[in-house]
């Protein structure tokens, strides 16, 4: 049992990270008052761009190709999210519908381009990110084995982003204004905050994070782009809600989903788990999510003005 946990942990963490960073992206957008159902599509965009850039550059710059790919995925995620921002903030469109449109466009565009490029529609990268064991820290009893062996550099990078994001949101001017826009945009506006600009920035950040999330998934777990984000973006959205729109809550929720999904994925090869019918394990995270969302919805801490286009003239 203990051994099993030691074995599962690195996989669970690897699975958690893309969810976490995407969820953090959603956090920025939603805290500013813009619902982002488009996380799935933004992630897919990141997967596509990441896989494409890495597969093209890895023979030329073997070491740095992955990082170029990750960076490009962030960039494209951000640019793609601009579309969502334009629809929701400038055009006052319905945010849910715009998000769905983002998902549909992303699926169509990436699959179309992938087919053009590779014929089969799959884009593989030859070498993913390698796992590293952190010297000294991995010698700490228990924790060392759980957290500091077989880790990906991206994990630490994303955790750093988590810390920075929390600081930004709660300690800085930018964060205070951003949260005000999500709670009471009229109050923010009358205090001289440019609500439109804040929301644009938030949505762009969310695109960059989701793009990074998608590409991270490629370089750590899947190794290829195959035309779908498999609901990871929606799971990130669920983690955002389950985590009650708070950075550390999101970390917990994302890890929970990551762990549960990993258990489901490996159940066939672990004797102890193989006795349980696969369908239970596979649906377990989703059933728990559903139950958790139903239960927590009553005490929902969702930003007050979420989903409302900001209308200056409204009194």
């Amino acid at each position: 049992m203990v051994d099993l946990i030691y074995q599962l942990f690195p996989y669970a963490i690897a699975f958690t990270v893309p969810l976490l960073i995407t969820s953090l992206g959603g956090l920025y957008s939603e805290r500013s008052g813009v619902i982002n159902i488009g996380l799935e599509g933004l992630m897919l965009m990141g997967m596509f761009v990441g896989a494409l850039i890495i597969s093209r550059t890895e023979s030329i710059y073997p070491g740095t190709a992955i990082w170029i790919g990750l960076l490009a995925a962030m960039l494209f995620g951000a640019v793609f999210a601009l579309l969502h921002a334009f629809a929701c903030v400038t055009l006052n469109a319905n945010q849910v519908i715009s998000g769905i449109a983002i998902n549909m466009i992303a699926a169509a565009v990436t699959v179309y381009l992938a087919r053009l490029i590779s014929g089969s529609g799959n884009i593989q990268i030859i070498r993913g990110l390698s796992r590293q064991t952190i010297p000294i820290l991995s010698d700490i009893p228990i924790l060392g084995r759980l957290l500091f062996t077989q880790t990906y550099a991206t994990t630490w990078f994303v955790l750093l982003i988590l810390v920075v994001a929390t600081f930004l949101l709660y300690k800085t001017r930018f964060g205070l204004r951003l949260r005000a826009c999500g709670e009471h945009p009229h109050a923010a506006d009358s205090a001289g905050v440019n609500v439109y600009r804040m929301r644009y920035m938030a949505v762009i950040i969310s695109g960059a994070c989701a793009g990074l999330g998608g590409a991270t998934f490629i370089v750590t777990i899947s190794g290829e782009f195959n035309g779908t984000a498999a609901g990871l973006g929606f799971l990130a959205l669920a983690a955002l809600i389950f985590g009650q729109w708070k950075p550390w809550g999101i970390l917990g929720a994302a890890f929970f989903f990551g762990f549960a999904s990993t258990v489901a994925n490996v159940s066939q090869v672990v004797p102890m788990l193989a006795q349980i019918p696969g369908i239970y394990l596979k649906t377990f995270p989703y059933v728990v999510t559903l139950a958790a969302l139903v239960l927590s919805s009553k005490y929902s801490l969702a930003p007050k003005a979420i989903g409302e286009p900001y209308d200056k003239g409204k009194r």
Partner: protein
Amino acid sequence: MDYVVEMRNIRKSFPGIIACDNIDFQVKKGEIHALLGENGAGKSTLMNILFGLYQPDAGSIYLRGKKVNIVNPNVANELGIGMVHQHFKLVHNFTVTENIILGLEPTRALMIDTRSASAQIKELSQKYGLNVDPDAKISDVSVGMQQRVEILKMLYRDAEILIFDEPTAVLTPQEVRELMKIMRNLIDEGKTIILITHKLREIMAIADRSTVIRWGKVVGTVNVADTTEEKLAEMMVGRKVLFELNKKEAHPKEEILRIEKLSVAGSGGAKGLKNFSLGVRCGEIVGLAGVDGNGQAELVGAIIGLRKILSGKIILHDRDVSTLSIRERISTGMAHIPEDRHKHGLILDYSVQENLVLKNYYLEPFSHKGLLNWDYIYDHAERVIKDFDVRAGEGAEASARSLSGGNQQKAIVGREFDGNPDLLIAVQPTRGLDVGAIEYIHKRLLEQRDQGKAVLLVSLELDEILDLSDRIAVIFNGELVGLVNAAETDENEIGLMMAGGKRGATA
């Protein structure tokens, strides 16, 4: 030129109505200038123009003798103009400090310097006698306190000209007195105040001059010292207003509402209702007096079905209605003028005509065979609008949001009077109304009574309760302190009971 603010020939029209019709308005430095006018006269619009929320169609604004162009509230802020809106603009889950510094945050090493900000706010708060806790969360503080946060927001931005749009409408009488004291402190520190209010007594008590507006035009500006409440009212309405009600003797009949040992859980720090019993008879008005937050909201919520009860009975027409749905209660003959007109009274983005049938749209003749009968709904709205003098640019088709605060209230009152309910539960029915409209609503309430209907009147205004009620129930801490005949009591006795003193306990 010794005017700090001078607005010349201001004109602003909305579809179907001229809200400001060539208004000239001057304010002297260091005065409290009251702006008075009927509901929909254009007071809020004029002040929104001064604050940069609206752009005038024509006219110009001079500040300290210099012509200015106030294109948005930020410009107003920079020019030293601040405004407390009737509906506060505060972020509920931020602290007082965070709300005040928003947009002008002091920082140190990238971080917001909350500590020094909160110290500065404390200092400001002490200087003007505001008594605000800078670290409290907005959602935890009272409405009166929230208003002070709005005042601090202006002071933090060094505003010199402070606009208050109906600040007292949402306050308890106690809070009103404190606000007046604060206003005097502000004047002593050299600020200038523009005050919109419908309460003539407040104008007489605190203002130096008053400008009266009617139908978008200035009627005149007077020195408060040279005028009386009666004269102000006449200027404003254009006719004599009777402050005396023509109240005939009541002829109460059988009991229509009987509340037996009702207990309701409190919410948001309120104490709830404990073992409360009260009867209301046909042909009488029962007033419920009490300091805000002593169980009134719980009682009313339980009667109309918005709150769950813990125990007890609510008997309407000899039938326990405590388990019935709200719609069933309404169809038993109950009507309700809610305390918060935006939360429970109107759907702001619906038109006036739609809002006027919210409770009975599904009945003949408003619908026929499941389809809405728009012709009838329109005619119905026109009738209510005429009866209750609801002023809106586009009449029945105007959106409720575009109405002035007082006209929104009149629309709700009109809807609830419509259909002649057997029991009318009126909570602050005249909140935000001008004296003319108050007179009319009071007259209608008495008419209702004289026709043998019952009224339960809940109000924080002791005058209103004393003037209208036949019997007065006093509530304190969720319990009934006493029930007295209005003819046999006075303000002092009720006031004592409101503080929890039993009748006769103090002489």
